């Protein structure tokens, strides 16, 4: 059968040729990072293809379809979690591969182009991570991507054009999701696969570099098949086990749907952007006069310089030796950069956790996500401003109340009235809002603090006192608005009612 196939296609001979390869100095686990990266890429392509069977890229369907994958599709949560952790694995193993090649000096002549293609592959993978981050269209995806787009916009000369290309409009919305989806699913993977092919072809042309010695041709050759292949699959399998275990025990968080008015959410980047994220927050602590300059350094100049040095490394490093002991400079700078990146990342992660703890942030659990999904189905997607619709618009003060709400309340309670799980209570379908008017007016006039329970969930925040900040009439208008929005039904409240409630 195989002979028949080979006579007509040559596939068996081609496979044998591919597997028959010398490994200078013998097989080694050090060489398995590259193949593990390719394996992670295959996991990403396969799981990604299946996710596209359900995912729908638009502002009104992205979150809903992601939630649908999480909650309704058989094994959907497992597949999306595998895709999430597979992305981390691909970036982590690619970084390890890059680092190993750098430390072993394998980028030197004649492998300069192999190195450059590898660095471009790494950058493209980062772009995949960045564009994929937006697609679930939850609050964190929205804010983190907004920051990323703004950073791209601060690049001199091409910044505005880059933002226009990425965002495709004045704000992040359906067209942005479509664009990111196209880049994430078609454009970058197509280029990536082509470049992986080029990377492997150049690798086979030059042969493996072998260990970091200057007399590689004198080393005894080992076999690629099955010796190196075995080590490759052992490392890939170990990586696969870690991805699967993490996908089961630590699926990615899905926050509430993106709400442009929610300004209380603490956004956090993917782990591979933590160092840059932290650098940016450190810059913010410097005197105001130099912050804009430092900002540009942290977001554009420093990362740009790093990429430039990485790409041009084979030409910048003129030292002909590959021996580790003879390359103190390049390895010293690499060690310092890595230590800095790890230190900044850890500092950044601690900062995020402290900030989240301060507002008692808790990611929504499955039951809360289901409630959120139900409430989204009964409330239209936020367009960035509170809207008054239907017969209730006829109630006195509704339109004005909507404006007061957008300006003062939506930051915490959200334009959808859904608040933020565990932090700011929802006003939608909240009996307290539609119930006793005196208690409600008292809360708005004089604030509220201490533990409360709303729709079964505990809250312990602080509602500010608005008397003095807002006129009685404005308080009445906003109360009428919240009592008659998002499915709530209650009587209108007048300025006289507000004035009558004393402390």
């Amino acid at each position, binding site marked *: 059968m195989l002979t028949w196939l080979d006579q007509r296609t040559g596939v068996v001979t081609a496979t044998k040729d591919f597997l*028959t*390869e*010398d*490994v200078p100095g013998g097989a080694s686990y050090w060489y398995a990072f590259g193949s593990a990266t390719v394996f992670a890429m295959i*996991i990403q392509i*396969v*799981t990604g293809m*299946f996710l596209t*069977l*359900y995912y*729908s890229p638009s502002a*009104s*369907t992205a979150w*809903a*379809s992601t*939630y*649908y994958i999480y909650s*309704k*599709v*058989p*094994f*959907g949560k*497992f*597949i999306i979690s*595998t895709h999430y952790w597979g992305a981390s694995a691909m970036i982590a193993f690619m970084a390890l591969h890059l680092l190993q090649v750098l430390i072993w000096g394998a980028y030197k002549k004649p492998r300069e182009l192999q190195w450059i293609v590898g660095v471009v592959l790494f950058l493209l993978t980062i772009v995949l991570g960045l564009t994929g981050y937006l697609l679930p269209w939850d609050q964190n995806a929205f804010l983190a991507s907004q920051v990323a787009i703004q950073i791209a916009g601060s690049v001199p000369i091409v910044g505005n054009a880059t933002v226009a290309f990425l965002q495709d409009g004045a704000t992040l919305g359906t067209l942005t999701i479509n664009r990111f989806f196209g880049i994430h699913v078609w454009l970058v993977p197509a280029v990536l696969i082509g470049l992986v092919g080029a990377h492997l072809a150049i690798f*086979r*042309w030059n*042969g493996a570099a072998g260990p970091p010695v200057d007399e590689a041709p004198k080393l005894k*050759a*080992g*076999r*690629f098949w*099955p*010796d190196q*292949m*075995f080590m490759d*699959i*052992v490392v*890939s*399998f170990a990586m*696969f086990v870690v991805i*699967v275990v993490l996908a089961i025990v630590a699926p990615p968080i899905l926050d509430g749907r993106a709400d442009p008015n929610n300004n209380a959410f603490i956004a956090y980047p993917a782990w591979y952007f933590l160092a840059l994220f932290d650098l940016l927050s450190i810059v913010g602590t410097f005197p105001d006069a130099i912050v804009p300059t430092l900002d540009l350094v942290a977001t554009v100049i420093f990362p740009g310089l790093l990429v430039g040095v990485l790409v041009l490394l084979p030409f910048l490093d003129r030292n002909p030796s590959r021996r580790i002991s003879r390359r103190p400079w390049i390895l010293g700078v690499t060690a310092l950069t890595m230590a800095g990146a790890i230190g900044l990342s850890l500092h950044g992660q601690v900062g995020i956790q402290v900030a989240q703890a301060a507002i008692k942030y808790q990611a929504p659990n499955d039951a809360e996500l289901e409630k959120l999904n139900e409430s*989204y*189905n009964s409330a239209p997607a936020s367009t960035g401003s509170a809207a008054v619709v239907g017969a209730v618009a006829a109630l006195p003060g509704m339109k004005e109340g909507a404006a007061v709400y957008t300006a003062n309340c939506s930051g915490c309670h959200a334009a959808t009235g859904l608040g933020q799980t565990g932090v700011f209570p929802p006003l939608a379908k909240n009996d307290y809002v539609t119930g006793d008017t005196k208690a409600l007016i008292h809360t708005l006039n004089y604030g509220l603090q201490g533990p409360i329970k709303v729709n079964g969930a505990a809250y312990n925040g602080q509602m500010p006192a608005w008397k003095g900040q807002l006129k009685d009439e404005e308080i009445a208008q906003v109360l009428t608005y919240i009592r008659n929005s998002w499915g709530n039904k209650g009587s209108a409240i007048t300025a006289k009612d507000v004035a009558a409630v004393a402390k």
Partner: protein
Amino acid sequence: MGHAVSYEDDGTPQEQSRRKFMVNMVVGLSGVIGLVLGIPLVATMIPDSKTGGATWSPLSDDEMKKLQAATEKPIKVTFNVHTVDGYLTPADDEQFVWAIKTTDAKMRAARPELFDGKTKLTYPVINMGFVLFSPICPHLGCRYVLDTDGKFLCHCHGSRYDDLGVHIAGPAQRGLDPLPLREHDGKGEVTWIHYKGNEPDHVILSYT
């Protein structure tokens, strides 16, 4: 590409045995990876088998009046069916049925298969003095029209039915499908059922 020299010598028996183990491990571990990924991936494509239960959709006051004024000539009655389409916000979709004023005796005479035997329906065919026909052709699912001769004609493949839904010509394997109708609080209510086409039996596909 240089010539591979490491394959020129088969190596010691220990080396050969070690390589055999490596080959088996490569195949075995690849198989485990394939199964752990393959089974969930295929499972994600299994469609949701839950079709949702049967629900009653009320006719509006205008449609109810139209129904009550109907004669033996078929009329179109529209109503809203509450549908859940995947992850989209559940919505009311407009549907229509054909209503014909008739009697139980006439229907039994014209369509005995709906009352007895394997193709018997589990709900009353005549309600409030009417039979309601699903607008979906029982051949391959097109929407048929009321022809100028008062008979129903499906333009897709030429199936024809008389005013009581009897299959009189064309490739369909059964007559038109009656749908449940009931009177509830003075209003007419319809249950929308999507039957499988191109077979003699009534096989429910969904209620939306």
